[in-house]
């Protein structure tokens, strides 16, 4: 057994330990590396920034589940902070049943922080099942799908929804999702009704959305925790996204080193074996 082979035989729990340490250390010794803003994030920021204050509401679809919380919740918080500081009204809804509790948690946190009033600055429509049927139904009349808000108040009694009938009265819609919901908004709200749609998705999905950005089917895109960190930078309110970027840097470097080492060991072991075979022959 040569050195390469022995190197490759190490218990993988050592690698787990290395990752664990690499993620924790930057929390205590932050590097404070600057986060550069990319174009898809800037575009989403600009689209939200252009919404006139105290007028037609931004529709925020918090469609994620707990499994992708660390990537998507920072986005919710940053978007809500941006909207509220511009006095833009926000109507929140969800297409995922677990999104119900997660939407409330993000919405109430920011509303409390910034002194926003339910019904006058924001409202929560709740959850509705049946993705395509919900999105298409809202194109006809939002009240067909959400007759009342999450707490049983008829929509007609909510001030910020006064005069809001369907997508014609929504300047921008943003879906935050770790599954196909974000795409469904493109298919069923943008395509038939011309609604402007922005999305925040997990990094796993982000690369698949570039064709939609290119065509303009999406006005902007936040990809993963990095996208949230960029947005936090734009609104100048650093939170979980920016805080996580240092650990992200360190672990990426570590993983790249592991890939390189693994390949060196593999090819080294293979060459050694070939040499041995040649010598034996």
């Amino acid at each position, binding site marked *: 057994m040569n050195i390469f082979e022995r190197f490759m035989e190490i218990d993988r729990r050592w690698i787990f330990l290395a990752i664990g340490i690499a993620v924790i250390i930057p929390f205590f010794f932050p590097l404070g590396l600057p986060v550069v803003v990319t174009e898809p994030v800037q575009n989403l920021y600009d689209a939200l920034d252009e919404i006139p204050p105290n007028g037609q509401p931004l529709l925020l679809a918090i469609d994620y589940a707990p499994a*992708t919380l660390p990537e998507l919740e920072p986005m919710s918080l940053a978007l809500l902070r941006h909207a509220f500081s511009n006095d833009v009204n926000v109507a929140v809804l969800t297409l995922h049943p677990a999104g119900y509790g997660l939407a409330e948690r993000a919405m109430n946190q920011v509303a409390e922080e910034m002194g926003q009033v339910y019904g006058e600055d924001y409202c929560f429509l709740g959850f509705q*099942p049946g993705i395509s049927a919900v999105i298409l139904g809202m194109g006809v009349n939002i009240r067909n799908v959400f007759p009342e808000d999450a707490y049983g108040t008829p929509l007609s009694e909510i001030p910020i929804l006064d005069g809001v009938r369907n997508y014609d009265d929504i300047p921008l819609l943003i879906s935050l999702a770790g599954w196909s919901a974000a795409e469904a908004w493109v298919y069923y709200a943008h395509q038939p009704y011309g609604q402007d749609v922005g999305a925040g998705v997990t990094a796993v999905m982000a690369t698949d959305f570039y064709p939609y950005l290119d065509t303009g089917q999406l006005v902007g895109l936040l990809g993963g925790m990095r996208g949230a960190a960029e947005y936090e930078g734009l609104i100048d309110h650093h939170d979980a996204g920016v805080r996580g970027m240092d650990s992200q840097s360190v672990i990426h470097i570590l993983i790249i080193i592991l890939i390189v080492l693994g390949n060196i060991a593999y090819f080294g072991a293979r060459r050694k074996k070939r040499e041995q075979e040649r010598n034996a022959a």
Partner: protein
Amino acid sequence: MRRQFPLALCFISGLFMAVQYFIPHPMVQDMYERLLIWLQTLLAFAFLLGTVSLIRVHYHKIRHRADDRGYSWVTLLALCLMIGLGFFHSAHHAQGSPFDKMFQNVQVPIEATMFSLLAFYVASAAFRAFRARTLESTLLLVAACIVMLGRVPIGDMIHSSIPMATRWILEVPNLAAKRGIMIGVGLGMMATSLKIILGIERAWMGGGD
């Protein structure tokens, strides 16, 4: 009645939904609005079907004294607890109710943590399995490393061309490849939908007569 009738219903409802997209007539659109609500209702009931199946699976495990039936008790009791808190606790949907607390402090941490396990597995696989054995996998790994560096702040510190290269990868080769896949998958989805509507694809009916 057993096979032909549901196939006919499937055909009619699918055809109507496909055709209404092109017909703005109010009569068609009114019916479309109503059918959308029907579909939503059916989806809600179909979802709850899953819960019933879950109860059955675990009930069987307990009744047949399966080895791991203790865990089945955990699942069933947790389910009953949530239903109890949801239906019989007055302020079930208010934030801070026991129902909400269970969600925020039990479901959220477990589900969120499950997938974060993968960060460890990715690291170990990076060392032990991701090999540049062919031209294809070499290309893949090189692109992956550039993107991984280019999307974190440290990449910019190493060299400013790394984020630019990342952007180019995303907006040129990635765009073309993903667009090709998108078209292919889209056509596949449409072909499947068509076969379902026409009754060629009947897997949804299950077995039996």
